C-alpha cells in the first residue's frame, strides 16, 4: 500500500509536467478580446458608433493571428451595430464575410449567423420572414436559441398572432441558461437577462401576471449582477407594470418611481416621462400629482403622452378614488 501511494504521487507529478503554454491566448487575441468587451459595453450604452470602432479593431487583432472564430464573431458584431444604426448597406459586407468564414471553417457557428439574419429581418420590419426563417430546425446554444425564439415571439406579437410554441421554447431556453449559469458555463449572461425579460413580457401579454413577475424578477437579478442599467430600468418598469396589474399599487408606485430615476440616469427621457406619467396616474387624485401632471404636459415632447395626460386630467377625482386604475 505504501509503495502504491508513492507510485501514485510520482504518476501525478509526471502528468502535471505536461505544459499548457500552447493553450494560452496570444497578445493579439487578448487585445482583440479586450476590444470586443469594450465594444459590448459601448453597445449596451447604445453608443453604437464607438462599438463599431472597437469591433473593427478586434477584427484587426484577430486577423493578425488568423483567429477565424474571433474574426467571425467580430464581423457579426460590426454588422449588428450597423443594423442598429439603420445602415444595412454597410452591414452587408461584414455579414457576407462572416457567412463565408462560417461556411468554410466554422459551420458550428451557423446559429450565430441565423441570429443575425433574424435580427436583420426583424429590425427591417419583415416579421413574416422571421417566422419563415425560424420554422426550419436549428441547433444553437441556449443563449442564441433563446434570442431566436424571442424574435419569433416578438414577430408574432407584431403580426397580432397568438403565440404558438414560442413561449415554451423561450422558457425552455431560459431554464437551460439557468442551469448553465449555475454551472458557471453561461457565455452570454446578457442573453439570459434578456430572455428572462422577454419571457416575463410574453406572460404579461398572456395576462399571466404572476409568471410575468417571476421572470421579470429573474431578469432584474441578472441585470443587477451585470450592472446593466438600461436592462435594469426595463426590468423595474416591467415589475411595476405587473404589480399595477396585480393591484399592488404601493409596489407599483415605488417601481415606477425607481424606473423614472433609472431612465433619467440612462438618458432615456421618453421612457422616463412614460414611467413618471404612470407613477402620477397612480397617485391621483392627490393635488401634487395633478400639478406634476400639468408640468409634465408642458415639458414633454411626446404628442401621444400629451393626449394621454390631457385625457387623464379631464377625468374627475372621484373616478380615481373609486378605482385607482382608470383603464
Amino acid at each position, binding site marked *: 500500500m505504501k509503495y502504491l501511494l508513492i507510485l501514485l504521487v510520482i504518476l*501525478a*507529478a509526471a*502528468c*502535471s*509536467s*505536461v*505544459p*499548457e503554454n500552447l493553450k494560452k491566448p496570444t497578445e493579439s487575441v487578448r487585445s482583440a*478580446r479586450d476590444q470586443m*468587451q469594450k465594444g*459590448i459595453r459601448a453597445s449596451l450604452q447604445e453608443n453604437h458608433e464607438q462599438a463599431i470602432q472597437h469591433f473593427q479593431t478586434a477584427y484587426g487583432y484577430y486577423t493578425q493571428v488568423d483567429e477565424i472564430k474571433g474574426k467571425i*464573431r467580430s464581423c*457579426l*458584431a460590426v454588422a*449588428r451595430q450597423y*443594423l*442598429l444604426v439603420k445602415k444595412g448597406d454597410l452591414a452587408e459586407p461584414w455579414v457576407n464575410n462572416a457567412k463565408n468564414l462560417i461556411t468554410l471553417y466554422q459551420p458550428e457557428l451557423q446559429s*450565430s449567423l441565423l*441570429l*443575425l439574419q433574424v*435580427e436583420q429581418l*426583424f*429590425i427591417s420590419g419583415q416579421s413574416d420572414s422571421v417566422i419563415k426563417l425560424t420554422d426550419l430546425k436549428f441547433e444553437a446554444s441556449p*443563449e*442564441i436559441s433563446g*434570442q431566436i425564439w424571442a424574435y419569433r415571439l*416578438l414577430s408574432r*406579437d407584431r403580426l397580432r398572432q397568438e403565440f404558438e410554441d414560442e413561449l415554451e421554447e423561450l422558457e425552455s431556453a431560459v431554464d437551460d441558461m439557468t442551469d448553465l449559469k449555475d454551472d*458557471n*458555463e*453561461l*457565455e*452570454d*449572461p*446578457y*442573453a439570459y437577462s*434578456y430572455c428572462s*425579460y*422577454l419571457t416575463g*413580457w410574453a406572460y*404579461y*401579454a398572456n395576462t399571466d401576471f404572476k409568471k410575468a413577475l417571476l421572470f421579470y424578477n429573474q431578469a432584474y437579478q441578472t441585470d443587477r449582477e451585470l450592472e446593466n442599467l438600461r*436592462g435594469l430600468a*426595463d426590468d423595474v*418598469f*416591467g415589475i411595476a*407594470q405587473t404589480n399595477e396589474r396585480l393591484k399592488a399599487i404601493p409596489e407599483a408606485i415605488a417601481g415606477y418611481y425607481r424606473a423614472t430615476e433609472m431612465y433619467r440616469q440612462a438618458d432615456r427621457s421618453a*421612457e422616463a416621462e412614460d414611467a413618471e406619467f404612470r407613477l402620477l396616474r397612480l397617485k391621483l387624485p392627490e393635488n401634487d400629482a395633478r400639478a406634476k401632471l400639468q408640468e409634465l404636459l408642458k415639458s414633454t415632447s411626446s404628442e401621444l403622452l400629451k393626449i394621454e395626460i390631457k385625457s387623464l386630467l379631464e377625468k374627475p377625482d372621484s373616478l380615481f378614488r373609486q378605482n385607482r386604475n382608470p*383603464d
Partner: protein
Amino acid sequence: MKFKFKYTNKIVGVFMLVALGLLIGSLILITIQQKVFVKKYVFKARFLDAEGLSTSTPIRFKGYEIGRITQFRLNEENTIDADFTVVEEYRTKIVENSGLNKAKNPISGTSTIELLQGPDPQKILPEGGLIPSIDIPEGRRLLDEGLVIKTGDVISSMLVNTDRLLENLNRDNNEKSGALFRALVNLADASEKLDKTMDQISVTFDKFNKDENPQDGAIFRALTNMADLTEQLQTTTALINKSLIKSDTLMSAYANPNGLVVKLADPKGENFIKPINETLKNLNYSLTEMGKLLVFLNEQQPELSGVISEGKQTLSTAQKTLEGINNNPLIRGGIQSEAEKEIQGSKLRPKHTK
C-alpha cells in the same frame, strides 16, 4: 670882407617912400573897394537865426556884392532882425516881394546872403523896407507863391532844397508841392487806409482768436461750429485713443495671456493664488522629502534589483508549480475555468403600453 652902408640914408628914404606910396595906394584902393564914399541905402532884414551872420556879411545878387549887414539883433519873436546897406548902384535891385537866402557853405564854413529879387523890378522897395529871409514863414510864402526863385551856390542850394524836401516830407497834405509829394500824400493816404484795413484785419483776427462769437456773421458761426466740432472730435479722438490703448493692452494680454486667467478668476489672489502658493510650498517640501527618498532608494537600488530578480524567479517557479497543480489529473477538475464571455444579439426589449 667888411660891409659898409655908403648910401644908407638914400636907400632908407627910397624904401620909406615906396612904403608910403604903397600904403597910400592901398588905402585908396581899399576906399574904392569898400565904396566908402558911395551913397548907401539902409534896409531891414529878418532871419531865422544868426548863424553865419556878422556885421560885414556881404549881400550878393547874381554874384555881385550889393550891400552888407551892418548890425543884427534878437527880437522878441526869437528871430533875428538885421540892418543891411545897399550901395546906390544897386538900389534899384531891391524891389518888393524880394527875399534873402542865407546859406552856409558846409565845406568852407562861410555864410552868404543872396538877394532873391521879387517878380516885378518896377516896384522898388522904399528905403527901410523889410526883406525877409526865406527860412522864416514870410520868406517861405514868397517861395511857395513862386514870387522868388531860390538861387545860390550848388551845395547851399542842395542843402536848402534838402532842407525844404525834409520839411515837406515832415508836412502833410502838400500834394501841390509836386508829383513826389502828391505821390507821398497818396502813399500816406493809402498807408493810412492800409493801416485802417490792417486794424480791421487785426480786429477780424482777434475775432478769429475769440470763441463764442456767433453774432459776427456766418463765417464766424461756421468757425464756432467748426471749433465745437473739432473739440468734440478731439474728445472723441481721446476716447478712441483710450479705447485703442485698452485694446492694445487687451491684445497684448491675449498675445501673452500669462496671468490673464488668474486676473479674471482671482483678482485678489485669495481664492486661488494664495492657496496654490501654500500648496506649492507644501509640494516643494514634499518634493524635497521625495528627493531624499529617491536618493535613499537609489542607494538601495542594488539590493532592490536583487529582490526584484529573486521575486521574478520566485514568481516563475510559482507559475510552474501552479501549472503543475493545474495540470494534475487528480485536482484539475476542481479548478473552475473562466468561460469566455460571448455576447451576441441586439437584445431589443419591447414594452407593454398598458
